[in-house]
């Protein structure tokens, strides 16, 4: 690592952790219904939502109703997003005249955005009309993030309340999250991004005359736009001269702001935040990076405030940070020092004049430190946006993002989903500790009994099952293998990464894999659905069960859960579960690739 690289990483961590407290405290006010400044600006809108949907905000719900309303709302979102894609050809705001999206791709994308995964099987600027980007994708960016945060808050209430039958009102949590947290942050952030050069316009794509016309081989196509093959079976080409550049633009900034803040990650353009119009400067890059983890980190503090002991929140945040920093260092070092193309006469050493390192798939303005930091942050949160191409990372550099996803997206994690996932691990951790000393485990004064253990085990076991079974099917079927871009071991990694990403609702990819096929659209779509709702529902069940319990007074045998000892225990449990489950699969992929490189 270079000195400047270290400086940039340290600066990022400091800002992230410093901002966690004020934002976390603000969010606690929002969820506890205490007065906030924005009440006066947006209060009318909140009341309008309730009136339009016939909701009584004071009426709280038990966990079953909370889960049911959450599922119904998400179902409505999937159906709307599907319909908009299928009908975009006949709908307005489509200056590039893009046709209907295929049924399997529409299903995949609708599920992908509703589950906060934002896996993208399609290329944004060549597939989605402006209207689809706004009404289907931007809207789901907001409400899928709000859904995750609502579920997390319901779980927090489960810990905080005693002998209670209800865990809050889903509509209220959804609405207040969207209006008072996500919308104002996105609004300001979008305008800052525009100032840096992110486009925001409804005009059609721009056309410019290039400075130096260049020759290229244009594929020859027949009248059905299919490539014509020569006698050797290779696509036929003819010499053509490029004189004009078509530059895709669009209402990008408004969507990029929420895709970063809401751990969504679905880019406006095909290459996501590597695109200069999506992430033009080091400042835009720093802010987009911060947005990836900021809400998830701050929610830990919100948790602390709402359970009445902020030390509990800091302990969870500390555990996340320990794992994050350790893996970040591995990724940066692998990308900076991996000896690439030395035999070809290439200079990859870092100096004052170049960042050096493995630059395939990376942008010069970000270099190694910011590309590796982004890869680590986007996969520890379930964001999945990218500013460099993970498929072109060195084997170990690529192992880091893949394993972070497989740990279950609990290192900061998705907004809301990261916290509730980590709290499941905390329950397992106190259970393990309880086994050691032979006492009934408790967390935050709540006895952890067999029902909670069953549910949290479900949460922790479902996604590894989806990943490993999905990958096995992918590597033995012809339809699965057809998508592989890089031959050999790396091809296996591409499939493993895809199923890890979808099942854990991340959305990033080893993007060489051609995943816009009926097989992958369907298989990954199902993984995303199960990986989201089969986790959220058991979490709500635990919330309901915990809310009903009394608080056990702290005794001599109680394990304190705010100490470095507990942080270490929690880190150990997360890593142990992640390692035991995935090391065999990783050994077949990136580890062998590294050893044979």
């Amino acid at each position, binding site marked *: 690592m270079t000195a400047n690289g270290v400086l940039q990483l340290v600066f990022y961590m400091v800002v992230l952790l410093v901002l966690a407290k004020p934002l976390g405290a603000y969010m606690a006010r929002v969820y506890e219904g205490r007065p906030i400044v924005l009440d006066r600006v947006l209060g009318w*809108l909140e009341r309008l939502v309730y009136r339009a949907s*016939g909701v009584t905000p004071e009426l709280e719900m038990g966990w079953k109703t909370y889960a049911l309303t959450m599922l*119904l*709302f998400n*179902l*409505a*979102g999937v159906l709307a997003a599907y319909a908009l894609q299928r009908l975009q050809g006949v709908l307005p705001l489509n200056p590039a005249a893009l046709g209907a999206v295929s049924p399997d791709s529409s299903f995949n994308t609708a599920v992908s955005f509703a589950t906060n995964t934002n896996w993208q099987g399609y*290329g944004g600027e060549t597939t989605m009309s402006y209207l689809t980007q706004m*009404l289907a994708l*931007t809207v789901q*960016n907001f*409400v899928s993030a709000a859904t995750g945060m609502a579920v997390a808050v319901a779980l927090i209430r489960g810990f905080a309340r005693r002998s209670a039958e209800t865990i809050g009102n889903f*509509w209220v949590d959804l609405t207040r999250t*969207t209006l008072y947290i996500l*919308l104002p942050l996105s609004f300001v952030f979008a*305008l800052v991004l*525009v100032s840096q050069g992110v486009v*925001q*316009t409804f005009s059609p794509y*721009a056309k*410019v*005359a*290039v*400075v*130096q016309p260049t020759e290229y081989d244009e594929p020859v196509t027949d009248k059905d736009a299919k490539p014509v093959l020569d006698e050797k079976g290779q696509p036929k080409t003819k010499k053509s001269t490029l004189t004009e*550049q078509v*530059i*895709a*633009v669009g209402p990008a*900034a408004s969507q990029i702001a*929420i895709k970063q803040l809401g751990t969504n990650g679905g880019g406006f353009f*095909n*290459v996501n935040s*590597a*695109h*200069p119009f999506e992430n*033009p400067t*080091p400042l835009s890059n720093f802010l987009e990076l911060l947005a990836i983890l900021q809400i998830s980190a701050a929610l830990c503090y919100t948790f602390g405030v709402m359970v009445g002991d902020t030390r509990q929140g800091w302990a969870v945040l500390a555990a996340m940070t320990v794992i994050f920093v350790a893996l970040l260092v591995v990724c940066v070092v692998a990308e900076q020092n991996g000896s690439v*193309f030395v035999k*070809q006469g*290439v*200079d*990859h050493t870092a100096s004052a*004049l*170049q960042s*050096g390192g*493995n630059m*395939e*798939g*990376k*942008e010069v303005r*970000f*270099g190694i430190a910011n590309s590796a930091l982004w890869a680590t942050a986007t996969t520890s949160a379930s964001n999945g946006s990218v500013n460099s*191409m993970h498929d*072109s990372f*060195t*084997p170990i550099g690529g192992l880091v993002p893949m394993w972070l996803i497989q740990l279950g997206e609990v290192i900061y994690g998705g907004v809301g989903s990261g916290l509730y996932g980590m709290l499941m691990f905390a329950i397992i951790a106190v259970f393990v500790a309880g086994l050691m000393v032979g006492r009934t485990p408790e967390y935050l004064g709540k006895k952890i009994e067999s029902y909670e253990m069953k549910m949290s085990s479900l949460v922790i076991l479902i996604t590894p099952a989806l990943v490993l079974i999905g990958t096995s099917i992918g590597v033995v079927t012809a339809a699965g293998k057809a998508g592989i871009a890089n031959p050999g071991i*790396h091809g296996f990694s591409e499939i493993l990464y895809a199923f890890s990403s979808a099942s854990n609702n991340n959305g990033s990819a080893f*993007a060489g894999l051609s995943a816009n096929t009926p097989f992958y659209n369907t298989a990954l779509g199902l993984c995303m659905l199960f990986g989201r709702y089969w986790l959220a529902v058991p979490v709500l069940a635990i919330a309901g069960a915990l809310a009903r319990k009394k608080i056990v007074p702290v005794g001599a045998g109680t394990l304190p859960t705010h100490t470095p000892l507990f942080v270490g225990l929690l880190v150990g449990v997360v890593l142990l579960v992640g390692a035991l489950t995935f090391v065999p699969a990783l050994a077949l992929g990136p580890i062998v*690739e590294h050893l044979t490189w």
Partner: protein
Amino acid sequence: MLTHVRAAIASLVVFTVVTGVAYPVLVTLIAQLVFPHQANGSLIVKGGKTVGSTLIGQPFDAPTYFWGRPSATSPFGYNAGSSGASNLSPTNADLVKSVQGRVDALRAADPGNTAPVPVDLVTASGSGLDPHISPAAALYQVGRVAKTRKLDESIVHGLVAQHTEGRLFGALGEPRVNVLELNLALDSR
């Protein structure tokens, strides 16, 4: 049950209007008013003609111009209507071969230059549209450009220095040279 279904549909409609219409439209209005240049793609207009965008690279392969990063977009490089990367792994023999080809092309265009080639000049960018190269990659090409344009090297060096952007606050990001702007400056000499 029915009340919940109604609530789901009605609230989705309201959120669609608020976050899917009002929010992007309001951001667009303010953006067009306050930052019209950036919001429309930072386009460069020369003599009434739009010649490019400062943020989007263009293909250059004449020895008289500075070359940018290799681009993996199809069917031609720097296709700003369809961004894309190679997604090739550094362990992939195809990538190693491409890198060798690019090194050979650079050497052929500048036979006297035997210095090792800066890595960003022979590896494809993430977007396929990277407008920048590293200062090292620019300095590597100064000799060739000066020779083919019959200019003094110090003049070309001066232009490169002028178009080199440092880190923000000396810390954030990486130093870089905007290839299109540099080439436009060369042409207008």
